[in-house]
Structures are given as structure tokens and as C-alpha cells.
């Protein structure tokens, strides 16, 4: 998609676990299933590696949305990592909602190594959602916004 002026282009950080979701993103790539360039992926070994600090940090530095992708429950490479991640993120997201941060800015999605289509779809949806929410002003360090 060519860049047009004045169009809001969100900053989106996607944490992907090495075993399923990062591979799912690779499959989306090798299958040429496009999604907006606004999404930047950070590889982590497991969804349970993602500290709420990372998510808040991303928002602080100007991210408009953060998504965490991991193996489907039951399929974690480390057996149980995504279960812990699920509880942590459930509580964190609920807290952010409680603080008045738009719910759609955070998301968890389970994407397997075989789900290139799902990865691409998820990212397309997420970008759309963030675009509809607009710029993140409630959770940012305003100095980071230019």
C-alpha cells in the first residue's frame, strides 16, 4: 500500500514466540500473505517471556498497539509457558481497561507455525482496529510523540 500523506500510520509491536507464532509469521511471509508494514515483530522464546513492563514500555515510547502471539494452549513448546502468559495478560489487559485505556490496543492471539493465514489476518484486523482507535494518547510519554 503506498504511503499517502496525513494518513494515520500506527506503530504496532508484535511479540511472537519463537516456536509457533514467529514461524507462523514466517509462513505468512513465504506465502506472501500481506499485512501492513506498521507491524514490527520482536522474537521472544515464549509468550511467557513477555513482561508487562515490555508492553507498557512500548506504549510509553509511542506504540499505538501491542499484540502478543504464542502457541495455542496445549501446544506450548515449553509445555506451560502460554498458560502463564494467558493469566498475566488477562490481568494486565483488564487493568488497562480499568484505567481507561482502550481495550483494542492490546491483544493476545494464539498462532501456530502452520497458521500463516491466521497470522496475516490477525495483523490486518489488529491494524484496522488500531487505526479506528487512532493515536495512543492515554498511555504514552508525550515527549516521544513527534
Amino acid at each position, binding site marked *: 500500500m503506498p504511503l499517502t500523506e496525513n494518513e494515520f500510520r500506527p506503530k504496532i509491536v508484535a511479540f511472537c514466540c519463537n516456536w509457533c507464532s514467529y514461524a507462523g509469521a514466517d509462513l505468512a511471509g513465504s506465502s506472501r500473505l500481506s499485512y501492513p508494514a506498521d507491524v514490527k515483530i520482536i522474537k521472544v522464546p515464549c509468550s511467557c517471556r513477555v*513482561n508487562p513492563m515490555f508492553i507498557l514500555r512500548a506504549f510509553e515510547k509511542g506504540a499505538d498497539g501491542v499484540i502478543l502471539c504464542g502457541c495455542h494452549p496445549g501446544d506450548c513448546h515449553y509445555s506451560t509457558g502460554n498458560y502463564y502468559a494467558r493469566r498475566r495478560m488477562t490481568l494486565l489487559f483488564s487493568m488497562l481497561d480499568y484505567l481507561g485505556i482502550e481495550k483494542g490496543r492490546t491483544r493476545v492471539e494464539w498462532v501456530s507455525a502452520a497458521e500463516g493465514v491466521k497470522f496475516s489476518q490477525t495483523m490486518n484486523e489488529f491494524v484496522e482496529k488500531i487505526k479506528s482507535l487512532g493515536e495512543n494518547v492515554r498511555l504514552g510519554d508525550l515527549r516521544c510523540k513527534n
Partner: protein
Amino acid sequence: MQRIGVFVCHCGSNIAATVDVKKVVETVLSEPGVCHAEDYPYMCSEAGQMKILEAVKEKKLTGIVVCSCSPRMHEATFRKAAERAGLNPYMVEIANIREHCSWIHKDMEEATKKAVILARAAIAKVNLNTPLQAGESRVTKRALVIGGGIAGIQTALDIADAGYEVDIVEKTPSIGGRMSQLDKTFPTLDCSACILTPKMVEAAAHEKINIYTYSEVDKVTGFVGDFTVDIRKKARSVDSAKCTGCGVCQEKCPSKKSLNEFNRGLNTRSAIYTPFAQAIPNVPVIDRDACIKFKTGKCGVCEKVCQAGAIDYNQKDEIITEKYGAIVVATGFDTIKLDNYDEYAYNQSKDVITSLELERIMNAAGPTKGHLERLSDGKAPKEMVFIQCVGSRCSDNRGKSYCSKICCMYTAKHAMLIRDKYPDVNVTVFYIDVRTPGKNFDEFYRRAVEEYGVNYVKGQVGKVAPLPNGKLLVQGSDLLDNKQILKEADMVVLATAIEPEASVRQIATMLTASIDTNNFLTEAHPKLRPVESPTAGVFLSGVCQGPKDIPETVAQAGAAAVKAIGLLAKDKLTTNPCTAKPDELLCNGCSQCANVCPYGAITYEEKEVNDHGIRETRRVAQVNGALCQGCGACTVTCPSGAMDLQGFSNRQIIAEVDAICR
């Protein structure tokens, strides 16, 4: 401060057509720590790697960022190159500008911008990288094969022939699997049992192979080279050591009404049974749900008639714990349930059958002793209709989205065999496409048409309606003649889609091997590593990975064996150095991290520490590097940040976040 070199790969035009690599090079040069940047058509080539080696030497680089394909492709390559250049291999980071950038974006400006950001994130991370040393772990020289069908048998034989111990775990009372249920095999039409039985016997007789039938895998712990597996040997109620396999117990057993699984439920068997004549081991089991002795306490006929005294009603499930270096999954397939396809009247009429059921009907040991007859009235059919793609190629959630691959060939085989043995039977095959890639396959199909006069009609069937006269009205369409066809048939055979054996889900979960939406096990790479699971030490054999015919299954079984042998041949494995590491001065000793560790890698020690001059004994966490697999669960549980993950440290990830959000 690191001295970082950035190497941007064109990947031919894969990257360079969408990402302005020169611009990337130019832009990253101003990043902190970067003192060298260049691009090259193929960084992964020997010449490309030499570029890295030279730059390391000339510019005294301490860290390397390669902007290229996914780290899943070439991270290992570039780490090795770094090692050749005298750097620690873990001073390399990959910016994935192919799969995550050039391949999914079309606009060059946009893709280039993104590539720069991804490079920045990798640079920011490398700035914080520290050299890591890989540890070592031992390899148990024994393999486990889960599933005793042709895939499992072949894999086990090949591993055993290489000189390693192999255990086969098979959940049914005999090895043999689906292939033992087949009558003839394409494209040569030789008898399935004739070629399978010798393999079964060979496996049973092999001194390196140990077979656990009527057994299941209960629990798997550990990791590549060092798995610990609990195998549940289900109570057979027959002492294998004493049983002579005479078969008298089965003859005399008064409970004969259980559906015969081996014959797909088309006839019945006794409560004490061996599934088929060539079963290995030739030792029956008692089906406790059907056995009168177990249900009422009275009976005991088998015990009375057994001269060997092998019957043991008190036998209990037994758990065997064994260590393995490699695990091969060969769990095979089943046909799908047809409850979603009642338009084909499978549930309404006995004369509508699946192809696997037809195999049993055609087989001399089958429910009709090999005579082709209608199951409703025993009459010989005159008109037979085959329907292809039943449940395959369906994207409507009723069936499977994939092609089951074997149906075109076995349907041609069935049609041919019927026309050969019963020339007065007319055979019509309704097909969508006939797919016969394979050596001598299309010729085989054409023979069915040209030599045996099988009537192939292009068009799917819409409905099969049982008629009051006992026949089946097949309503199909002939797309080539643009006609709707109404055909009265005596039997209808459904080429039913295949799906992975249901138990594979549980097994995959135990092995933490990933599985796709259709329950097929995922391979480490769809083209280049097709017999390996992404989980190290776990290999895939046969249909559990995707639909396959027998020759393909055997080929893959051999390939899986080779991969397993390659692993077992090693004495030591280098372990992932990206493990958790506690900062003893920050550790509270609260044990929360140990509670979430799936490997029991964290223990606590009362240890004297020197905290800025204060010497005291504290309870602090210790990580066993050989056990830790580096998931990072502990790091988030730790409130003080004392526990960190090497290679994915808090600061490294935060640096990446900052670089992306900048």
C-alpha cells in the same frame, strides 16, 4: 560499546526487489555502535560469509547484524561464520527483512523504512549482547517409535539395523496398522499382507527392537537426547510368556458380540481376541468391557480351556519408565466420521460403505470371506458406484480442506479389481479430478478405464437415496455432458477422507510438538526438514505428518530413521546457552520462579553473598543450565528482575522495543 557490522542481503531479488538495500546500508551507518555496513546479493553464500569474515578482521567488529531471511533459515549459518571469524557465535543477531518485510510488502519506500527499523532493533539488541557459551548434554542411545504401522515398523527396523535399541509402542493388540487391513496395494496389486507380514516378523525378531503392543505413551519429560517416557502397558489379561497362541480361548469364548474393529465393525469378534491371524504378538487380549467374567464375575471359560494357564484376570496396567534420545511419531490415520455427509446415506443404508470397509469385504479374512456382496442382503451387486472426495477438499467445515491424496489411486484399484474378478459388475466412478502423480500411477488409472472399462464420470454426487426395492438411487451430475444423472446402484463406495489418528493430539501435547489445524504434525520446515518436528529430537514418520501412500510412507519412515540415527550417533549435544540466570544480589529467595519452571531447573541454596560490603547468608535461586530450556517464565514471575534470560534479556528486549517505537 560494541563495534557492529551490518550485512544486508539482497537474497537475489527476494529482498532487493522490494527493499532498497543500499538505502538500508546508508541509514544504519549512523546507528550507535555501527562501524561497518554493506550489502551483498547472497549473504549466506560462501562469498557472502567471507565478506563477514573480512569485515570482522578489518574493522575489529565485536557484533554482527545480518539483515536477511528468517533466523529460522540462516541464523545458524551466520553464527558459524562469526565463529570462523573468531567471534562468539551469540554476538550475531538477524533482522528478518524477507519473511517479515520484503515478501509481504509491495511498496518499496514503505518496505525500506520497515527494513531499517528492523535492522535498528537488531542493532540495539546486539549492543547489549554478551558472549555465551553453549553447554553439553548427553544422548541416550535408544529410540522410541510411537505407532506400530508400516511407518513405525520401517523406522524401527532402519534404526535397529544401524545398531541402536528401539522400542515400538502400539496401542492396539498387534503391530501392523492400517496396512494390515488392506487387501491389495496399488499400483502393483500385490497382496498387502504378503509384503507387510515379513516386515512385522522381522521387527518382532530383531534383537534391537522391543515391541510394546496394547500400550500407550502416558507421559514424556525431558528434551532432545534425554527424554524420559512413561509407557502404560495395558492389562492384556493374558500372560504373554505363557500363551502359545493356540486360539482355543477365542473359539470357546461365549461372548461373541463385540464389533470387530479390525473388520471396521462389519462383523463381530469374541471378547478374548487377537485382531487378525497374522497378529504380532500372537497373544490375545481380553476386552474387559465385553468379557462376561469381568462384567458378572461368572464365566471363566477361557481360563478353563487354556492349557498353558496363560489367562490372568488380575493383571493390572503396568507403567514402564524408559529413557530415550530420540522419539519418532508414527501414529498414522483413520477415515473421518461420515455423520456430516448423510446425503450419501452412509448411516441410512448398509450398502453404502467406505473404501476401507470395501478393503475388508474384498479380503479373504474379511466379514464376507472375500466375496463381493451387499451387507444388507448378501446379494452380489451388479451395479457399483464409487464417489470420490467424500469429506476431502471441503472448505465448509463439514470435512477436510485438504486432498487425502490416496483415494484416486485406491478407487482405481478397487474398480479394476472388481472388474477383473466380477466382469459382469458395472463400475461407475464419480470424480472431481483424478489426481495420479506418482510412478506408474496415471498408467494404472488409465488401465482401469481402457482395459477394464470402468466408467469415470466427472462430477460430484449430490445425493444417494435408498429405494424401496433395496437399490440406491445415485443422483450425480456429468459436467462434461452437462447432464444430471440418476443411476440405480447396488452398492455405493465412498472414498472417505483420511485424518490423523485422534490420539495424535494428546501425543503432540506431551511432546510439545506443534500440530496444524487439521491435526497433522508440523514439520520443522515444509520443504527442507520434512521429517523433523520443530521440537528437537522428535521426528515424523508416515501420515501423522500429512496424507501419504505406502511407498511415500516407507520412504519417509526411512528418512525419519536416518535423522534419529544421526542424533543417536552423537555422544554429546551442545545445549542452548540462552538460559535463565539469576542475579544473586537481587534475588529475594521467594520461590515464585521455581513454581513456574516446567523443567525443575531452579533450586534454592543458602548462600553467603557479599552485597556491597554486607556479608550475609541468603536463600538464592540457582539455575541448572542443562535443565533450563530458556522459556523465560521465571523472568516475568520475578518481581525484582533478579532472574533474567541470557540472549533475551530484559534490557535487550526493551532496547528492541525502544528501537521500534522510536
